[in-house]
């Protein structure tokens, strides 16, 4: 069962469960204070505004006791996917490198963006080919990826950048970078490729009746791999 961890202030937990159910993946919401159920074989850190984004987005949830369990599971190979606020939590918890901070525009941005698949050899991107362009929605105020030049170079070298913001033709440009993310990075892998975070919302581009396309299905299929 995939445990979708619901913190106080999470608001994409139901979306994630519905999107996974649509793909035939058994998923349930789990309240963060209850701890991970024994039968957990995958974890979603969903989007939202856990702890009201106090201090920094994701900072509080990342220190909640349940995250110790998440880190242990992640280290043992359980797939973990952080989406939007879940990505901020993942970076704050040290599951993934870098940090997500205030958009360069200083605005909350809610729009559809194009992403280029940078590494198709992961559970999260096996449904795509490297260089494929997909369209996901974003909705965040603190999505600007930050890392030192050396860290980013290391991530590139280790092929741990999952997606980059690009235009519809797949060109990675400043104009196609919605939030000022360093290197246009939209999603990264942890130490193992079973752990990934991304700011855009694959679960909002999964159900066919939402009319935003179904490009996000590939990411969620990482749980059925």
């Amino acid at each position, binding site marked *: 069962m995939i445990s979708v961890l619901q913190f106080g202030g999470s608001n994409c937990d139901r979306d994630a469960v519905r999107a996974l159910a649509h793909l035939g993946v058994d998923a349930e919401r789990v309240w963060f204070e209850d701890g991970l159920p024994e039968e957990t074989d995958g974890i979603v850190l969903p989007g939202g505004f856990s702890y009201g984004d106090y201090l920094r987005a994701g900072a509080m949830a990342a220190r909640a006791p349940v995250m110790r369990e998440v880190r242990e599971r992640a280290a043992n190979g359980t797939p973990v996917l952080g989406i939007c606020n879940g990505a901020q939590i993942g970076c704050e918890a040290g599951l993934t490198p870098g940090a997500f901070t205030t958009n360069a525009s200083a605005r909350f941005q809610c729009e559809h963006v194009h992403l280029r698949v940078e590494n198709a050899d992961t559970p999260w991107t096996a449904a795509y080919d490297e260089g494929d362009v997909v369209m996901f929605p974003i909705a965040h105020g603190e999505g600007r990826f930050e890392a030192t030049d050396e860290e980013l170079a290391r991530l590139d070298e280790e092929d741990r950048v999952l997606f980059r913001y690009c235009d519809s033709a797949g060109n990675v440009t400043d104009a196609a970078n919605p939030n*000022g993310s360093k290197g246009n990075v939209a999603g990264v892998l942890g130490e193992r490729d079973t752990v990934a975070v991304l700011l855009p919302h694959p679960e909002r581009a999964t159900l066919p009746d939402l009319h935003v396309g179904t490009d996000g299905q590939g990411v969620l299929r990482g749980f059925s791999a």
Partner: protein
Amino acid sequence: MTAYTATVTVRLKEGVLDPEAETTKRALERLGFELDGLRSADRFEVDVDADSSEAAAARADEMAERLLANPTIHDYDVDVVER
């Protein structure tokens, strides 16, 4: 044990873009102020009892390392006074 207040100031590392500070600067300029730059920081005042100011500083330092600052983007400093 002595009562101390440890002030932890957390700021973005030099070179890390601060869109909120930029926006604040522009708003001040719209109000007619002349300024060359503006930086913002978060300040936490933590009341602790400790054996010495060094011990109080060490505890505040650990608080910054583990929660108050994010080492990827922040620098911080700690200042301790008796209260």
